[in-house]
């Protein structure tokens, strides 16, 4: 199994049925695997902020949804995260294609990429970066377990180091 198949396997093991996404090259590799599985329902979003609301609605309905988005999407979601799942205590598993870090070619990605861990920390949102193939199963499984135990957002940042260095 490659890293994308491992992540999809973890999502499935945790009964996450809804995959709500804004397109991103890393997330797309995950969705290409997930689309082959009829147990997932994939929803395209107009903006990542909207996805926070959608996942929260799925959650209070007893469903489980994940939010797949690029790093820029975290920036687009901050107040929605801070004022909805955090105070209402709603799990939001986030799988974020991590840009603006090691090997980044686009200078305008770097500010958000470098700020992302600090922003998540400032919001008390636990976050984990996937860098190596051998940690994908353990870290993804643990992060998903955490969001449901905590009833609060948790972010998995999927690096280009793991996924093959996006080329400019």
């Amino acid at each position, binding site marked *: 199994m490659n890293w994308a198949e491992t992540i999809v396997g973890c999502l499935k093991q945790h009964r996450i049925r809804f995959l709500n996404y804004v397109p991103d090259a890393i997330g797309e590799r995950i969705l290409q695997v997930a689309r082959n599985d009829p147990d997932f329902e994939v929803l395209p979003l107009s903006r990542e902020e909207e996805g926070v609301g959608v996942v929260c609605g799925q959650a209070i309905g007893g469903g489980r949804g994940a939010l797949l988005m690029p790093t820029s999407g975290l920036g687009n979601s901050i107040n929605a995260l801070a004022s909805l799942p955090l105070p209402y205590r709603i799990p939001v598993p986030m799988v974020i294609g991590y840009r603006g870090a090691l090997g980044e070619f686009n200078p305008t990605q770097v500010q958000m990429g470098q700020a992302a861990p600090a922003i998540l920390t400032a919001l008390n949102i636990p976050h984990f970066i996937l860098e190596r193939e051998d940690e994908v199963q353990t870290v993804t499984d643990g992060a998903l377990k955490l969001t*449901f135990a905590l009833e609060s957002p948790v972010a998995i940042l999927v690096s280009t180091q793991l996924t093959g260095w996006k080329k400019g």
Partner: protein
Amino acid sequence: MIARLDATRHVVSRLTDELVIASLGNAKYDLFQAGDRALNFYMWNSMGMACSMGLGLAMAQPRRKVIVLDGDGALLMNLGSLATEATRKPENLIHIVWDNRQYQLTGGQPTHTAFHTDLARIAEGAGFEHVERAETLPAFQAAFDRALDQPGPWFLLALIGPETTPVRPPRSPTFIKHRFMTELGVSH
């Protein structure tokens, strides 16, 4: 011009087991005034997210009608959601917008709908097939009853007046969430 509380009372009078999400502000206050119930989810912030929550809830609970009580100012912050709702097309979603053409809680500043912006036409353009606009209470009552009875998704725009309600629903987000989910019989 429709009085929002009268229209909300009509909605509440028709409810059995429907799931209701109220956007922050007077949409929420009037819902509480018209009839508090466990399956009312009151939003206190994340302006604009009521209809996105409604979409997600409709996806997770396809056998229940989901009613969103939204505001014009809130929807203007999340117009993209109309496209997402229309793309996903949940038959059980009723998206109501109380359009009073102002940001009432912050001093009554006009929203864009006070000028040239027409949210019903935007909903049509986004792809909603069932769009109604009501300017009188009887028209709203008839439109809502149609939406309850027939598959959607529905977009109902109600032009409302400036009246407000002094009552306030419970503020505790965890209480609101737990009460809702307990009544619905679900857990995370």
